[in-house]
């Protein structure tokens, strides 16, 4: 029996920049079942990273979640917070957006964990990797040793913050306990670091990129989270190392049954990992369904275009079918109330000038698509003239505030070694 573990409802995340309000994520629904791997795929500026960070409560000014609910299913937790925050609780679900920041933060590591493209940001360079993993284990141990009350969890959070600061001051700090050290080594072994005993005593800079990525996964797993949010986890890695890390995530998921939300621009990674997929464009999920629904039976012309743009490793030298034009700006005052893909869509019709809702693509009801083609066939007689959008100046398209860019989520791909980096002047 599958059950929903996370329900995102009507989520909107805006960035209030000098150029205006950027609608990074708009009215987004997302349902994730316990134990599945759900993938969100999209290009830069699609809002996929902002979605992940909204769920993790990592949106910072000028960004803000302006609307919506993030409902997390955890009966114990619902009971614990129910007294103080009855408005947030609905049966076994808790709407995280109704909770004070301290409590939301206390879920990090133990209920939700996140891994990023760039593992350096997750480690303190002055402590060994083993010590940092042991610390993560300790935080979890303290949290679960006490009754799951709000107070205890908040306190333990402060305590860990305090000891983290202490450890920064005293870089030679020993492990909190032998037990946590052993668990740290186990975690390194779990993520397939060869020679975990030796590696535990090394510092982050002594790790290769792929190993540090593994160590970050170990750190994220220390608290045995329900949901792992993986934001472009392999984008900075070379392809043979990417394959190792994907194998690892796959194995861990099968062993622990954890739920993974995987964010990536790489359709191959999606195909390799995911049960269900949401395709994002301009802050919305435009098509969602099983892997087969989206890859083989897609309805949305954007999904079609995305798949048509990927050069095929096996196939013959067919000409690529790119999507013309650029990503829209997402500036509120420039966004019209139409299908946001209409200006690039080869099948745009008059019907598309009203913002389409999500339609069911088939009878089964779990393949949904935000496109009028789900309801009616393309009709040339209703097609928009080719120059319809020309008066809207699109030249500078994606130069505008692109909140995803700040996390560099689409700046693939080549991790530069000093060797490759060196030299190379102008012409």
């Amino acid at each position, binding site marked *: 029996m599958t059950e929903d573990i996370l329900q995102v409802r009507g989520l909107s995340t805006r960035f209030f920049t000098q150029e205006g309000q950027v609608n990074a994520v708009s009215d987004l629904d997302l349902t994730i079942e316990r134990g599945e791997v759900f993938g969100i795929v999209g*290009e830069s500026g699609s809002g996929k990273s902002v979605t992940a960070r909204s769920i993790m409560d990592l949106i910072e000014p000028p960004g803000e979640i302006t609307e919506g609910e993030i409902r997390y299913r955890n009966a114990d937790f619902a009971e614990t917070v129910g007294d103080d925050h009855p408005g947030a609780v609905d049966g076994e679900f808790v709407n995280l957006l109704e909770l004070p920041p301290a409590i939301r933060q206390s879920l990090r590591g133990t209920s939700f964990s996140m891994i990023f493209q760039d593992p350096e940001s997750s480690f303190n360079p002055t402590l060994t990797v083993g010590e940092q993993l042991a610390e993560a284990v300790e935080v979890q141990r303290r949290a679960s040793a006490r009754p799951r009350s709000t107070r205890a969890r908040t306190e333990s959070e402060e305590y860990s913050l305090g000891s983290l600061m202490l450890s920064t001051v005293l870089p030679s700090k020993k492990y909190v306990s*032998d037990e946590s050290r052993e668990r740290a080594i186990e975690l390194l072994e779990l993520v397939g670091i*060869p*020679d975990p*005993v*030796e590696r535990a*005593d090394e510092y982050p800079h002594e790790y*290769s990129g*792929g*190993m540090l990525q593994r160590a970050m996964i170990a750190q994220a797993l220390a608290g045995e989270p329900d949901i792992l949010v993986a934001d472009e986890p392999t984008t900075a890695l*070379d*392809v*043979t*190392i*990417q*394959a*190792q890390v*994907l194998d690892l995530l796959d194995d861990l998921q099968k062993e622990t049954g954890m739920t993974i939300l995987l964010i990536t621009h790489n*359709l*191959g*990674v999606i*195909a*390799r990992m995911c049960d269900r997929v949401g395709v994002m464009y301009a802050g919305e999920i435009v098509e969602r369904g099983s892997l*087969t629904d989206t*890859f*083989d039976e897609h309805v949305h012309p954007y999904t079609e*275009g*995305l*798949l048509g*743009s*990927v*050069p*095929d*490793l*096996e196939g013959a*030298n067919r*000409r*690529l*079918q*790119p*999507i013309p034009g650029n*990503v829209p700006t997402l500036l509120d005052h420039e966004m019209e109330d139409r299908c946001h893909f209409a200006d690039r869509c080869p099948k745009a019709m008059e019907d598309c000038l009203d913002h389409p809702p999500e339609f069911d693509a088939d009878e089964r009801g779990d393949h949904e698509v935000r496109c009028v083609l789900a309801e009616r066939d393309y009709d040339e007689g209703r097609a928009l003239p080719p120059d319809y959008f020309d008066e809207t100046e699109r*030249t*500078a398209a*994606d*130069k505008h505030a692109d909140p995803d860019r700040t996390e560099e989520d*689409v*700046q*693939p*791909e*080549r991790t*530069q*070694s*000093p*060797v*490759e980096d*060196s*030299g*190379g002047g102008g*012409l």
Partner: protein
Amino acid sequence: MSTDRSERPLVRVDDLQKYFWEQDSILDRLLGDEPVPVRAVDGVSFEIREGETLGLVGESGCGKSTTGETLLRLQEPTDGQVEFDGDNVYDLSGSELTDFRREAQVVFQDPFSSLDPRMTVGETVQQPLDVHEIGTDDERRERVRDLLERVGLSADQLDRYPHEFSGGQRQRIGIARALALEPEFIVLDEPTSALDVSVQAQVLNLLDDLQAEFDLTYLLISHDLSVIRHVCDRVAVMYLGEIVEIGPVQELFDDPKHPYTQALLESVPRASTDERDRDRETLAGDVPSPRDPPSGCRFRTRCPQVISPEELEIDQETYRELMTLRERVERRDISLETVGDEDQFDLDDGTVPDEDVPAFVEALRNRLLDTDLPAAHEEIVERALAELARGNWDEAAAQLREEYESVCERQNPDLGNGGHPAACHLYGEAADRHEGTEPLQ
């Protein structure tokens, strides 16, 4: 791309080397530290025929970009030779060098940093024409307009600055600039790596069209095998500063010879619903440092097919594990202090007391190897680990080498000649000596 190409090489690269030197500052010299070479490119040879696209593919640090920059003489080589249209590029000077700089252009990966932010697009594209004093002012401006339109931008965007353009548009500007002097040859260094996939497709199609229209010869440097597959006529695969395989694109992708090429191709996740059921063998380990590359074949520390001595009757996977163990012994990368339970073994002077050696060896062995070994090999390994317990690292390494040394570590395989050579002993003379080792498919 068309198959009807002339066979004449436009570019001939012969044993090109490019080393960078570390610990080479004045302070290092005062302290008497020897400079350490980083062998970014270590003896590569290949030809690029007129009108073709040669792909150079490999992972970060393999030296592919350095190769591109060095053959354009944007960097001076450490050794080796590059001929362009029959002339040695490193001997050119004066007007000949100027001509070469016109004929051979480059497009870099990063459209965000390779354009001067203070120059308008028109100025950027026109700059090479000004430098080389081509035509009158009016002619230059006219040419810039043509170029911009040709790469899919509009001529009224001339007066805008790079920051006003998207990544894909900036890459088009970079391409227009590279085309300004009507070159014969363009090095495309990761030209689409910073772009979204839908925009990448636009740029790849554009490059294809331009090649046909202007008879261009390309060297495409990329880490992305799908892009290489799509665009190139022939491909060279690089690993740790060397070319390990080179051949026509379809042959190389359909029938990769070198174990590294095979692994690389297997590693790419396909964007298709069969992907989860695909059999794939993932390569273990990391790329070794180019400061201290492995002896013999540089891929041997990760190669699943590393060749065992003939008389050794042991399955391939176990042999691979033993070779990895040897590597660790040789690099002294095993921490003896942490063997066993807390304080179980007293290692004060780096050696284990005699009476503890058997228990120590057992604990260490179980930590280092997952598999059971045939009895004879179990004995060899335990003997070597007992040497470690007494602090004799060199002796342990020597014993293991004696038993397990591979031809792959003694000899660096040559790339060889022919239409599709691979630098691997499975295909050279060693393969004949070692019959029975079938290259995996």
